[in-house]
């Protein structure tokens, strides 16, 4: 059988898809009126007024962290390499206990000092503009290709529907840009409700229905065990070798630590009403992990169903198309495509917050008014998305995928500054900056020199490890050495504006952040 490269247009599915997309568009614009606040303030536009409760935060964070691209790429990877692709499951399990430990502290200090971004915090903590700029730069650099990948996710879904050409993608992009501009973070928060319902529906139906058609899970795993070793790069059902196991664990750990450093994760955390909301959510968000694990199994279901695709990212669309009646195939496609809108919107808002606070206000106009600040953020969110669209339209898809892989490596390099900074300012700001620079360079160099394979056969350690973890280790060694050498020297001029009790995660729940014009239309 020849691998599938393109599909005939499925009109029934396409009509359902367009209808659902239309509903979401209306919601996106209507969201401006929801939990009404003055959208001319960055706190309101970019953080939803910091007043999302447990339920909204659950939908928003879930919809934001578990992106449409993930839902396309993880099953595709499992389809292609087997168990190696399954690291997404331990990764998204351990991320929540880690966030539970760290993020309430960031929420507390950010709420006290009105920080909107991680770089705001770094500037306050270390009094170091270069260090804050390094964190800003890393966040922007890693977010751009990630937004592009959301559009890539939509592209693959459209391919599955049999829609070719670039205009549908441009339409989807225009809708996304317009409602983000008018409604800010409220739009993805509201759309997430619809998107998440559709995704859950799709996955639950698929997980019950598809195995019944391909001979049950016994047969699914048996087919995979048979097919995987036959691949050009042999895969396996179980990671048997020590090398494969170290790679598996280091990818899970490194990716988990990188995930919540991303600007879009921090934006979603800071938009919640209280520390308590953040903490409680960490025991509720694993519901998403379970969903992702089930989706990963679609890779094996596709093997059992005898799906053969020209590129792995078509695995899920091809499987759904093969298995479902047209109308439900339309629902499933809409679920994934709408799923791309939520993270893309949050990411562009996060990037806009970063740029406005930590580039524009820092370097261009320190006296920017609240209103100008919000206006600039709205425009930047457009520019960022236009850039992402450019990525997708004019560069090979592989470029976005490779850059996104680097994005994780890059984000990890801000961990010493941001995460360790939440606990201690023992590290010297120049040590952190040097560690960051070395980590970025080493990580990028390793990844590029071996053609973007995420793991590296690490010398000295003698194991195959996730590049990001290797770079982070080098980063920490450099940062610690310089901090030791400098000791207390040159620290006096850096004023830490935060107090130890600002971080206290056992602090009673604070009132929602005051909004200057709360209640005013």
């Amino acid at each position, binding site marked *: 059988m020849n691998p599938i490269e393109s599909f005939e247009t499925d009109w029934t599915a396409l009509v359902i898809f367009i209808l659902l997309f239309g509903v979401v568009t209306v919601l996106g614009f209507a969201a401006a009126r929801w939990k009404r606040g003055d959208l001319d303030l960055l706190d309101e536009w970019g953080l939803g007024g910091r007043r999302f409760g447990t339920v909204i935060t659950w939908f928003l964070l879930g919809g934001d962290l578990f992106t449409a691209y993930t839902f396309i790429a993880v099953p595709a990877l499992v389809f292609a390499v087997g*168990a190696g692709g*399954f690291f997404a*499951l*331990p990764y998204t*399990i*351990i991320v*929540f*206990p880690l966030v*539970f*430990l760290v993020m309430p502290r960031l929420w507390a200090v950010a709420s006290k000092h009105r920080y909107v971004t991680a770089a705001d915090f770094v500037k306050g903590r270390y009094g170091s503009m270069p260090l804050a700029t390094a964190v800003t730069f890393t966040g922007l650099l890693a977010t751009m290709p990630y937004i592009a990948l959301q559009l890539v996710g939509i592209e693959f879904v459209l391919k599955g529907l049999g829609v070719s050409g670039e205009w549908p993608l441009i339409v989807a992009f225009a809708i996304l840009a317009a409602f983000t501009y008018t409604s800010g973070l409220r739009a993805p928060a509201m759309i997430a409700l619809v998107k998440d319902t559709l995704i859950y529906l799709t996955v639950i139906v698929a997980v019950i229905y598809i195995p019944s058609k391909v001979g*049950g*899970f*016994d*047969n*699914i*795993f048996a087919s995979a065990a048979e097919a995987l070793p036959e691949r050009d790069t042999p895969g396996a*059902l*179980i*990671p*048997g070798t020590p090398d494969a*196991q170290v790679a*598996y*664990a280091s990818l*899970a*750990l490194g990716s988990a630590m990188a995930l919540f450093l991303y600007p879009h994760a921090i934006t979603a955390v800071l938009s919640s009403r209280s520390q*308590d909301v953040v*903490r*409680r959510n*960490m*025991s*509720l968000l*694993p*519901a998403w*992990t*379970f969903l992702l*694990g089930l989706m990963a*199994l679609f890779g094996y279901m596709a093997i059992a169903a005898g799906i053969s695709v020209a590129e792995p990212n078509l695995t899920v669309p091809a499987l759904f198309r093969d298995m479902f009646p047209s109308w439900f195939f339309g629902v499933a496609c809409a679920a994934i495509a709408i799923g791309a809108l939520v993270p893309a919107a949050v990411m562009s808002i996060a990037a806009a917050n970063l740029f406005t606070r930590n580039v524009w206000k820092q370097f261009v106009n320190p006296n920017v008014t609240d209103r100008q600040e919000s206006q600039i953020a709205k425009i930047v969110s457009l520019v960022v998305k236009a850039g992402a669209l450019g990525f997708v339209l004019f560069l090979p898809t592989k470029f976005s995928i490779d850059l996104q892989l680097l994005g994780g490596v890059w984000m990890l390099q801000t961990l010493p500054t941001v995460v360790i900074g939440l606990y201690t300012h023992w590290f010297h700001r120049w040590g952190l900056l040097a560690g960051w620079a070395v980590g970025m360079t080493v990580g990028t160099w390793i990844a590029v020199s071996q053609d973007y394979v995420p793991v590296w056969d690490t010398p000295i350690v003698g194991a195959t490890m996730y590049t990001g973890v290797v770079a982070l280790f080098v980063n920490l060694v450099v940062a610690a050495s310089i901090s030791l050498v400098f000791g207390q020297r040159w620290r006096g001029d850096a004023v830490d504006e935060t107090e130890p009790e600002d971080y206290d995660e*056992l*602090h*009673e*729940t604070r009132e929602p952040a005051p909004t200057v014009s709360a209640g005013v239309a």
Partner: protein
Amino acid sequence: MRIWYVLLAVPLVALLYPPLYAKEDPELFGFPFFYWYQFAWVPLTAGITYFVYRMTRVDS
């Protein structure tokens, strides 16, 4: 109270040491051990995190 945070290390150890679970048997509902073990850790981790949340919460 803070001692409860130590519990959060349990899922990390259970999942970051693959030799514990990189095997096929015993199977469950057709799932090799490697797969159902990791799936089982999803609710287990949620439960542990919730427990730690309850134990460290300060009611105001």
